[in-house]
């Protein structure tokens, strides 16, 4: 047990708890519990918005799995990781102001609220809620495993105890603080990630004897490591490029990201977030994956990818600095987990229970439900993660791709294409998910179809389905202003 590493991490966790507690006090005085708990009352400023998007997005895979793969694959994987720079500006620009305006008109608190108001369809709501619950659940499990492994490798605790520790920390402050707590702690965690990765990168470069030296070692070991094609030369341009969809532009369709695009205060916060988000995303991704590659000559022969970052930090930094630096992946994992947890619980409480089971539930019931469901979900994930499947990236990307294929067109085209209707949305979600799962198993058995990542084809198919079904069945132009007239009549 390494106390000088542990203490900075514990201090970090305590600070995070404090923020959660502080937010919960604000929540207690709130007049609109639902909007505050699940959305932070649409008050986020630019910096917090950017950070919460980066932190939610940057997860175990960007901090442990990704660098671990870069360690094995070399620069080709860093190239692949840099496709994520686009998320820094793309999501907010594409959903952008129209999404913010429409979300306010619809009084939408979740992404599903938006879909419900736009398509006016129970099937769309239930289908989306179901896919969020299933897919994000697996994403969450993957993150918990990552978090527990990290604690395990740092403390020497057993996996089970590490997982328990992690579960408690996450649950306590998600249940008490809600979205605002999550967003605020994301901002702190984002800053920790930023500084942590920079320190570690510098330490790794120094300990490797400078970049040129490291490069020479890599070439001596295997020249393929410095090419864009991976250590075995099997990363094709088409495959790497298809990650532009998976971890780049497709991120628009991820509910945990999309919900953040309706949470900001005004256009100026959005403008600031665009710039900050681009810088921070690119910087973190570049640093983390370079660290992965550079670690190779310094610590050869690590066989579990997820352990590269913890091991290299312990190797190159004084223990207490390593503690602070390793708080970064911890922060990334926690911030992803609590957003997912909150989102899954909002789908259950807000989108299913309040819409269809008990629309007239009292505030007290809603509060109890929100806290209760969040807590129960946490316990279930904990139990699932106790006996974890081995492939962390796999689970995580499976959830990513499935959700993107399901949601990207109903959201984006629902926003900008007036002919989009509920038949298109249902067909698009169904096609996206079904073809994703089918293709996934096909690709495992036969190698990647057309040499691209599984997500590519389902995204195209769901686009075709959306357009075809919208035009073929009950074609009708949607009036984006209609809801205004309705609201005014009521008023």
């Amino acid at each position, binding site marked *: 047990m390494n106390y000088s590493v542990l203490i900075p991490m514990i201090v970090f966790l305590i600070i995070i708890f404090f923020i959660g507690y502080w937010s919960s006090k604000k929540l207690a005085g709130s007049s609109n519990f639902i909007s505050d708990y699940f959305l932070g009352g649409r008050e986020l400023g630019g910096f917090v918005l950017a950070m919460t998007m980066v932190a939610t997005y940057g997860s175990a895979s960007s901090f442990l799995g990704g660098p671990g793969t870069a360690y094995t694959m070399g620069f080709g994987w860093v*190239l692949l990781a840099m*496709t994520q720079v686009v998320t*820094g500006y793309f999501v907010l620009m594409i959903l*952008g102001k129209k999404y913010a305006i429409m979300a306010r008109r619809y009084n939408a608190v979740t992404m599903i609220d938006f879909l419900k108001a736009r398509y006016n369809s129970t099937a769309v709501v239930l289908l989306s809620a179901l896919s969020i619950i299933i897919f994000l659940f697996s994403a969450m499990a993957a993150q918990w495993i990552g978090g527990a492994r990290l604690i395990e490798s740092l403390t020497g605790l057993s996996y089970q105890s590490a997982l328990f520790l992690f579960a408690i920390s996450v649950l306590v402050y998600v249940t008490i603080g809600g979205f605002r707590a999550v967003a605020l702690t994301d901002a702190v965690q984002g800053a920790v990630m930023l500084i942590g990765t920079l320190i570690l990168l510098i330490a790794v470069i120094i300990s490797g004897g400078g*970049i040129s030296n490291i490069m020479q070692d890599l070439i001596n070991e295997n020249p393929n490591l410095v090419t864009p094609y991976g250590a075995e030369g099997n990363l094709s*341009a088409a495959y790497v490029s298809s990650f532009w969809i998976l971890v780049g532009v497709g991120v628009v369709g991820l509910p945990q990201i999309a919900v953040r695009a309706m949470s900001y205060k005004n*256009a100026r916060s959005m*403008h600031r977030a665009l710039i900050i988000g*681009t810088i921070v995303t690119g910087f973190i991704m570049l640093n983390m994956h370079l660290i992965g590659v550079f670690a190779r000559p310094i610590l050869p022969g690590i066989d579990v990818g997820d352990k590269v970052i913890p091991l290299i930090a312990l190797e190159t930094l004084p223990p207490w600095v390593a503690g602070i630096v390793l708080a970064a992946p911890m922060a990334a994992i926690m911030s992803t987990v609590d957003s997912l947890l909150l989102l899954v619980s909002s789908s259950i409480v807000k989108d299913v229970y309040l819409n269809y089971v008990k629309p007239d539930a009292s505030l007290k019931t809603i509060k109890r439900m929100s806290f209760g469901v969040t807590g129960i979900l946490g316990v279930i994930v904990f139990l699932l993660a106790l006996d974890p499947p081995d492939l962390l990236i796999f689970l995580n990307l499976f959830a990513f791709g499935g959700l993107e294929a399901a949601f990207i067109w109903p959201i984006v085209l629902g926003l900008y294409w007036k002919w989009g209707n509920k038949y298109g949305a249902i067909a698009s979600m169904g096609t996206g998910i079904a073809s994703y799962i089918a293709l996934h198993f096909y690709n495992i058995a036969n190698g990647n179809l057309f040499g691209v990542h599984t997500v590519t084809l389902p995204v195209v198919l769901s686009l075709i389905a959306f357009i075809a079904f919208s035009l073929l069945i009950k074609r009708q132009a949607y009036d984006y202003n209609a809801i205004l007239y309705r609201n005014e009549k009521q008023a």
Partner: protein
Amino acid sequence: MKETDWRFRVAHREAWIGLGLALFNFVWWFAFAYGLGNRPVEEYTYIFGLPDWFFYSCIVGFLVMVVLVTVVVKFFFVDVPFDEEQEESR
């Protein structure tokens, strides 16, 4: 009544800009990575110790995107209100 909300025109233009930036980003990233990267390793040159294809594609590419996003946001993005103003919606 059929008149489009002026804020939507702003929003639509900005979404197209976003799409354009992403396309440009992709082309830059792809052209340098695979244009320079497919030479034999012995022919690579190194800038700040990094292989040239990587330096131009990922480091310079990233910086270019930061500058572009900043310029676009500062000069082309319009500050619009998000809440409804009753007089204007008529």
